[in-house]
């Protein structure tokens, strides 16, 4: 192993990859967020729209769970768009969205454990994203890692 070149002040070390935030592995993360944006949006839309059908839980019966579904969908949409853009503002918006997502999935996950009677209707972040293979629990940590690796 050859001796590595010493980097003066870690400026280069802080940006190990020269490729922008929305390229390479970043594209995977954005794809995952995009898929969640679409599926959470579709789910919230289906849950909240008052289709007159038997057995469907209407919004008035479960306002909490369905509002949380809609909120989660909005967070995913914002996070996807912000992650896909390269400006410094987009970086901050993405950071806020990913942090909200992280606290949301942990908070709502804990809440569904403590008071399951409030959540007879499943919501996206219920049970730490159990319905979605716990990917909603992992995704914000991956997103956060990626954002800090690519500071503006």
């Amino acid at each position, binding site marked *: 192993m050859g001796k590595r070149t010493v980097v003066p002040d870690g400026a280069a070390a802080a940006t190990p990859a020269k490729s922008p935030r929305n390229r390479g592995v970043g*594209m995977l993360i954005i*794809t995952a967020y995009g898929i969640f944006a679409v599926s959470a949006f579709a789910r919230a839309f289906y849950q909240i729209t008052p289709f007159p059908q038997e057995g469907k839980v209407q919004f008035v019966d479960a306002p909490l769970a369905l509002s949380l579904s809609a909120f989660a969908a909005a967070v995913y949409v914002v996070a996807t768009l912000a992650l896909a853009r390269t400006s410094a503002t987009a970086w901050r918006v993405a950071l806020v969205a990913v942090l909200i997502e992280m606290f949301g999935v942990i908070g709502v996950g804990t809440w569904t454990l403590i008071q399951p009677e409030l959540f007879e209707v499943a919501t996206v972040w219920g049970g730490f994203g159990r319905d979605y293979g716990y990917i909603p629990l992992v995704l914000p940590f991956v997103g956060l890692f990626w954002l800090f690796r690519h500071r503006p």
Partner: protein
Amino acid sequence: MTAMFLLGTVICALSTLICWTMTAVRAHPADSSIISLAAIELYLIVYGIYAGVRQAMGASIAGEAWEFWGYILTALMLPVGVFIWAMVDKTRWSNLVMSFVGLVVFVMVYRMEEIWWGSAL
């Protein structure tokens, strides 16, 4: 388990495996990855026509038709959307991006089978 579900599972699994392999061996979006996405899209079209003809002839499904068609339409957009996104940057990672389609479509077909027949398995 229906034959259609089995077929879908095989196509999705093959597509994901092909895309993973191509991520390892190709530094650009591979033809085989793209063709595997087209195979999934084709399968979903056939699945939709089959479901549409069957329901038009009066067959009922266990769940809600609205939810079922919502799933099919979303699933149909997925290979197209992911393909366009994967082509934004033509690198090794395009193949890995495309590998998501097989995984997600499998889950969606699983849900559609549940809505259609009451159970997927």
